[in-house]
């Protein structure tokens, strides 16, 4: 049976118990096995990959490609559809640039994003649309930050060719109906780019069951190291797309006049890859696979519920989001009359880490009529006690900022 108590010791920063870490949507802590896999790599078999046949390089290459295979299995796809990037942001920029430069979106075409996007899945499309004279439509959320399937299909039926959207919003933790969205898009032959940065760490994502054309996520949000992420794509489109970055590894033959490119996935991996990162991420995935996942998800869901209910009972706290089970692991809130920075600073003094600010989701926050919020985000190693400590600290905030109650 899964229990957070059984895994906390695997995480050096969590284990000390010094900090209630509730900023998991920003980045997760790493288990020792991931940290050790990085050390082991540098201490035992560090080498550049794909380029040499001495034993060290063979071992590095083998491990790098085994990491790709591991991640491919995790997502239920073939290895050559897994492209390693620096993170979700690069993955989305890669597919956006390739699509625009490859002419899959042309002047006069339409595409859409949602207002719930992280800037990383909003600004690339916005800026490239401007550059290439493509029209960008916006799928709106409800006042609670949810998007029902009808809102998606309505925009789809305006003749868009591509839809980029998040499976789970990072500002509010709202899980979108991504299965239905991808199905509806495929029926209409609309390309889908699914931002899985928040989704993949929490839901078992099988790419071809969902039916998205592209999926992007970051390693550091699913127990892996920083500097590594994944773009998973549909093979026929990847084959059609031009490369994004150019350099070593991704070429076939280079003459002064012309270059031909390598096969998938190397065509999209220019330069020395982050071997360490790939190995660390594969280790993280292995760790996650060894956990009874359904139970872990249920655990996080029940913590989310406890947090939502607890916050709702504090009169001077305002909560954003639907507040039901469409909301997972992330809760955004404000203390009335107090700026979120001050709340976060106060919580920090109580050894509780939450994030305050716009969470790289300004359009969504503006849509809700706020500039900033506090965000508590949970992961599998968090406990009821973590949630309760946050709630207690919030109740006691009046001792430092007495006007909080007076504003009521």
């Amino acid at each position, binding site marked *: 049976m899964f229990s957070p108590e059984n895994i906390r010791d695997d995480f050096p920063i969590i284990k000390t118990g010094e900090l209630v870490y509730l900023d998991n949507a920003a980045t997760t802590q790493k288990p020792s096995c991931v940290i050790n896999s990085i050390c082991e790599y540098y201490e035992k078999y560090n080498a550049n990959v794909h380029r040499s046949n001495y034993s060290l390089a063979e071992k590095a290459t083998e491990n790098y490609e085994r990491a790709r295979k591991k991640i491919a299995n995790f997502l239920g796809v073939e290895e050559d559809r897994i492209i390693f990037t620096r993170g979700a942001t690069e993955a989305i920029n890669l597919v956006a640039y390739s699509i625009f430069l490859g002419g899959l979106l042309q002047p006069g075409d339409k595409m859409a994003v949602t207002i719930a996007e992280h800037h990383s899945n909003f600004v690339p499309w916005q800026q490239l649309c401007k550059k290439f004279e493509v029209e960008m439509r916006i799928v709106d959320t409800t006042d609670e930050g949810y998007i029902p399937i009808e809102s998606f299909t309505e925009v789809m039926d305006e003749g868009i060719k591509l839809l980029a959207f998040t499976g789970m919003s990072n500002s509010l933790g709202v899980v979108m109906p991504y299965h239905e969205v991808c199905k509806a898009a495929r029926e209409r032959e609309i390309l889908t780019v699914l931002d899985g940065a928040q989704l993949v760490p929490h839901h078992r994502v099988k790419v071809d069951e969902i039916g998205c054309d592209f999926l992007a996520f970051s390693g550091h949000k699913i127990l892996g190291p920083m500097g590594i992420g994944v773009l998973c794509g549909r093979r026929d489109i990847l084959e059609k797309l031009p490369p994004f970055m150019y350099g070593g590894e991704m070429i076939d033959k280079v003459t002064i006049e012309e270059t031909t490119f390598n096969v998938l996935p190397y065509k999209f991996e220019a330069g020395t890859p982050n071997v360490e990162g790939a190995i660390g991420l594969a280790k993280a995935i292995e760790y996650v696979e060894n956990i009874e996942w359904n139970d872990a998800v249920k655990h996080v869901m029940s913590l989310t519920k406890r947090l939502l209910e607890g916050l709702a009972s504090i009169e001077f706290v305002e909560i954003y989001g639907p507040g039901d089970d469409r909301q997972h692991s992330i809760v955004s809130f404000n203390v009335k009359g*107090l*700026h*979120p*920075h*001050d709340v976060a*600073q*106060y919580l920090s*003094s109580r050894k509780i880490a939450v994030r*305050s*600010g*716009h969470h790289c989701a*300004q359009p969504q926050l503006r849509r809700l009529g706020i*500039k*900033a919020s506090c965000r508590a985000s949970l992961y599998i190693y968090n406990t009821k006690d973590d949630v309760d400590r946050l709630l207690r600290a919030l109740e006691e905030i009046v001792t*430092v*900022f007495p*006007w909080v109650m007076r504003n009521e």
Partner: protein
Amino acid sequence: MSNLDELYRDMLLEFYMDTSHKGELKESEHREGKNISCGDEVTLYMKHDGDRIIKASFTGDGCVVSQASASVMAHLLEGKTLEEARRLILNFISFMKGDTEDISEELKIFEGVKQFPSRVKCATLAWHTALELIEDIMKKKGN
């Protein structure tokens, strides 16, 4: 005193609560400032007779530190010559950067902010904005 108490000293909270310098100033010069990393915005208003600052005020949303700092600054600037104001501001910015310890008593309440690097920007936002405004005024005068 805990770190937090040092940050939010009573005096600082008093300046935060003191809204006497909050609000727009009609027929004044103004300038907007922004802290990109957290999105805080402040607009600073100033009335002057070409030499001396007669009135100062601010509007904007922000954390306790940024609001208190704007409030105390508006307080202190009134009655100062532009050059005196300029020097006061530069002194405060140096102080917050840790470049000097020499600072007037009422500004010592920001001492505790220094241990939180991400908050130093909150404390200096209004001051940087005021500096730009004053230097603008002086330049125009010079011409």
